[in-house]
């Protein structure tokens, strides 16, 4: 019998009940809750007189709607405020632990989970948010769910699921200097397409993936959903173990030893069979920039906007034409000629300490281009913010004319006051370049933190390695 993939192992470990048609009742070890997708789930519980099955397995935080400045004054938008207040009330009523807006541990749900050790290797993790795939970086089976499933997981600690297929993506060899986790995942999505992973769980492997820090691995798994996969996974290794040692919710003492032993089994067996395998050479990956309105519309920073006439089929051609029109770009235009109005460094993809360090390294001693209206730096959590300040990163950003904000989702989806105006181009370290995502009519280009910082300084896209030295103080 062939060995098991990492996904098979995690799946098998959580099956409570198997139905005749192959669907399974899967046990959920951790649910993360936030204000946007939970109110109707709590209403459902109340309506049916149900209580959470295992209340301690839930952890809540407000992130999507919270303001990233002047937090002491509360939330000025009454509709946003009601939603955040509703989360507070629901958590109080049902006895769920919540990091509220003034807690140092507050932050983007996918940043605080690993940071607190609340999401661990080997767990099943769900959240009413598609980027729950982030937690797969530590070999947790983590996926986004809808609000009805949030209610279901609250009430039963289980979900009805059908097993996905196994897709292995191997990134062979080492990346070139200046190429980051974000560039790797954008290149992967460019290669397999925005629907390339539908129906699959992706395991990311290969030397270039193993060489990444936990933060980098989270960036990669975060965007598995942008390739259509519900979950992304990376095997446990020493990097994983070292990351979780000593986190507030990590196991302690003898529990830790037992956990570590188990976690070290969380990798695909050498003879495991995948339904599909895709291999990339890390050497070929350059810093990436999206030009269109789906994440697979992506090219290298030294490339040009592609021509729809070269598309392989009619539906694609139409999609590309529409994207060019929305983005206000011409086929053949150099990526380096795209002028930016705003820059956003943040989101659950790239707001961890390593991301801020990468952005600061490029920014140090330089200043924002006069043509760029605003550069927002939004740390992923209160603890990331504190760490960055201890390292003096905030000063580098402030000296460059950037804004240093409080943690939250911010301009990733523009549910709070941070947003683009119609027609503005934004270099963004987030994960979605959909029409209107960062504000009505806004034009998003997805990039790494280093590229975003370089764009903020040059006013257009540029490989950070090519920033003129004279701008350095």
């Amino acid at each position: 019998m062939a060995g098991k993939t990492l996904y098979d192992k995690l799946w098998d470990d959580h099956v409570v009940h198997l139905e005749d048609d192959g669907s399974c009742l899967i046990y959920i070890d951790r649910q993360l809750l936030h204000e946007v997708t939970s109110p109707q789930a709590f209403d459902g519980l109340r309506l049916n007189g149900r209580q959470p099955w295992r209340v301690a397995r839930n952890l809540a935080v407000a992130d999507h709607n919270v303001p990233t400045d002047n937090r002491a004054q509360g939330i000025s938008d009454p509709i946003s405020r009601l939603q955040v207040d509703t989360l507070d009330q629901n958590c109080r009523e049902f006895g769920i632990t919540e990091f509220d807006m003034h807690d140092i541990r507050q932050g983007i749900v996918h940043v605080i989970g690993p940071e607190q050790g609340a999401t661990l290797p080997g767990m099943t993790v769900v959240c009413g948010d598609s980027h729950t795939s982030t937690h797969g970086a530590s070999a947790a089976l983590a996926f986004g769910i809808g609000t009805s499933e949030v209610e279901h997981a609250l009430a039963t600690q289980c979900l009805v699921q059908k097993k996905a297929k196994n897709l292995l993506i191997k990134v062979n060899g080492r990346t070139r200097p200046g190429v980051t986790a974000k560039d790797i995942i954008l290149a992967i999505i460019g290669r397999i397409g925005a629907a390339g992973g539908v129906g699959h769980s992706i395991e990311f492997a290969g030397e270039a993936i193993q060489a990444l820090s936990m933060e980098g691995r989270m960036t990669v798994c975060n965007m598995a959903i942008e390739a259509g996969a519900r979950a992304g996974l990376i095997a446990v290794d020493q990097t994983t173990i070292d990351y979780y040692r000593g986190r507030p919710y990590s196991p302690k003492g003898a529990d830790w030893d037992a956990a570590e032993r188990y976690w070290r089994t969380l990798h695909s067996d050498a003879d495991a069979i995948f339904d599909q395998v895709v291999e990339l050479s890390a050497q070929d990956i350059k810093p990436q920039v999206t030009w269109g309105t789906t994440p697979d519309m992506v090219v290298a920073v030294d490339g040009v906007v592609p021509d729809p006439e070269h598309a392989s089929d009619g539906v694609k051609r139409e999609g590309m034409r529409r994207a060019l029109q929305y983005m206000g770009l011409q086929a053949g235009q150099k990526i380096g000629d795209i002028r930016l109005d705003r820059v956003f460094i943040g989101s659950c993809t790239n707001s961890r300490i390593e991301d801020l360090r990468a952005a600061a390294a490029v920014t140090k001693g330089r200043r924002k281009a006069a043509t760029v209206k605003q550069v927002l730096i939004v740390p992923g959590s209160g603890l990331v913010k504190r760490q960055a300040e201890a390292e003096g990163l905030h000063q580098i950003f402030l000296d460059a004319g950037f804004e240093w904000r409080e943690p939250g989702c911010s301009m990733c989806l523009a549910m709070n006051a941070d947003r683009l105006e119609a027609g503005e181009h934004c270099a963004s370290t987030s994960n979605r370049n959909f029409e209107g995502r960062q504000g009505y009519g806004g034009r998003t280009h997805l990039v790494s933190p280093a590229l975003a910082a370089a764009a903020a300084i040059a006013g257009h896209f540029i490989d950070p390695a090519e920033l003129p030295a004279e701008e350095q103080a």
Partner: protein
Amino acid sequence: MKAFTQLTGLVAPLDRANVDTDAIIPKQFLKSIRRAGFGPFLFDEWRYLDRGEPEMDCTHRPLNPDFVLNQPQYQGAAILLTRENFGCGSSREHAPWALEDYGFRAIIAPSYADIFYNNCFKNGVLPITLTSAQVDALFSELRPGYRLSIDLEQQTIVTPVGETLRFNIDENRRHRLLNGLDDIALTLRYADKIRAYEQQRAARAPWLFRDA
């Protein structure tokens, strides 16, 4: 949950691939803490020429005449015909809430994003998967007043000329949707199994059970 058995309805074509849930229902409407009332904001940015805000009255907003759902021949449509990877992006269940509230009870496409697909079943919306060739054929056949008859029990679609297309769907999902069953109540029938699982898991992974 709302049941779905049979439906004969007008078809509206949305000829785009990768329609994301941000397009189906833009984020500003996600601030609502209710489940109802999203229909007027379905496809808000494509449908109207101005910018939509939550709780606004849509009756006098300027419509985008080029958007398909604003064309007179598609008023009252109950079936949405579209392209691959429909419902990609954010997990927001507000997307099927908005589609259902608008009046769509069935969608036909070559593929769906996984989370969206699941969410549809929870809300009495039937997402039907056909091959790309079948979807192409429906797009080219479509004329004003084009109606399809869908039968979930039989797993069939009948076209106006009487052609019958079969579609596949998981038995479990079909059963739940046909009968409008409460998923949570169904799962709670296995409460003893869940407890037994917790016991044996606690023996294997005690660090996950220090709370109880």
